[in-house]
């Protein structure tokens, strides 16, 4: 399961990520985002199957201009995919697989991945963003809310971690 290639030193990666964040603020006036793109994708896809969805109280503002996907964050997430692909391809790290502790059942691992995604989706709607759009962007622009979110997320993560020890073989 080990990668063959070295990753960047975390402090250097962080320095570059913070600098990229700043470039994004200088150009677009906003930083990295991810969860908003998935909210919009869900809204758009559901709307294509069921036009009455446009009256849903949460998604109505997304669909006001006709297409929920005509949005900066959505386009930027496509970029994240391309950038991640380029980096992994250059380092020879594109490899199909499932990360889990040795001997942990695959169906259980995928069940937790799915349930985690389900919970995180709702969490990002309550918190108006995720690790990128709320924690990183917010903390870099001095928002108190970003720290409330981050401390709550890490606190809950530490508390709940023992439940998933086997999955990660810690």
């Amino acid at each position: 399961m080990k990668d063959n290639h070295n990753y960047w030193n975390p402090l250097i990666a962080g320095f570059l990520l913070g600098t990229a964040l700043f470039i994004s603020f200088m150009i677009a006036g906003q930083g990295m985002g991810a969860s908003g793109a998935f909210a919009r994708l869900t809204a758009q896809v559901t709307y294509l199957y069921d036009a009455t969805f446009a009256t849903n109280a949460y998604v109505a503002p997304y669909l006001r201009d006709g297409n929920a996907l005509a949005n900066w964050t959505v386009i930027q997430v496509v970029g994240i995919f391309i950038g991640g692909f380029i980096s992994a391809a250059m380092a020879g790290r594109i490899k199909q697989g499932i990360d889990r502790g040795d001997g942990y059942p695959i169906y259980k691992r995928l069940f937790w991945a799915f349930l985690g995604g389900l919970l995180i989706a709702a969490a990002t709607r309550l918190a108006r963003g995720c690790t990128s759009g709320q924690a990183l962007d917010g903390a870099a622009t001095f928002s108190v809310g970003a720290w409330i979110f981050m401390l709550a997320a890490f606190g809950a993560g530490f508390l709940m971690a023992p439940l998933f020890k086997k999955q990660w073989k810690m």
Partner: protein
Amino acid sequence: MYPLYTTGAITTNENYLYAIFIGIMFGFILERAGFGRAKHIAPVFYFKDLRVSRVMVSAILTGAFWITLASYNGWIDFNQVFIPATYVWPYLVGGAIFGLGMVMSGWCPGTAVVGLAKGKIDAAVFLFGVLAGMYVYFDLFDSYESIANFANSGYIGKFTIDKLIGGDIYTSFIVTVLMGIGLAIFMHTMKSIRDKKEGEN
């Protein structure tokens, strides 16, 4: 004057074009940081590998430093930068659910996009969960007024550190640095306690 888009120097379409390149930059850096694998993310919750917290603290302090410097030099109009409004209670509860979801899945939405690009099946399944979760939330939000009410509770607007404790952007920057150092010290202390325990076993 910056930001280019919010001050009207570039059009929406130009901004969208730049968004692709900005995203590529983010995706490339996230992958190089090791965030394209759940195996590199989950260990932070066991204080085993501090990659996640190190990158985050380093990125926050770097971003905050550039913004403070740019604001000092008058390059950027900080009022034109998007800062999410703070809703105290939903941020606390949302944050806690997020943390649970993260240790459960080993992913967050941004890193999972990189994981997907690398061929990680758990990232793909996680993202299906995210899409399903969005649908469920939209439906509940529309059906139950209590959810919408809770989601909008504790609203204090754009609330930066200097609004909480007084001062200006420089005060905010200093407090952010202290918070970052505090978080780093906490993580390192917990890691050395853990390493010591592991050594005894």
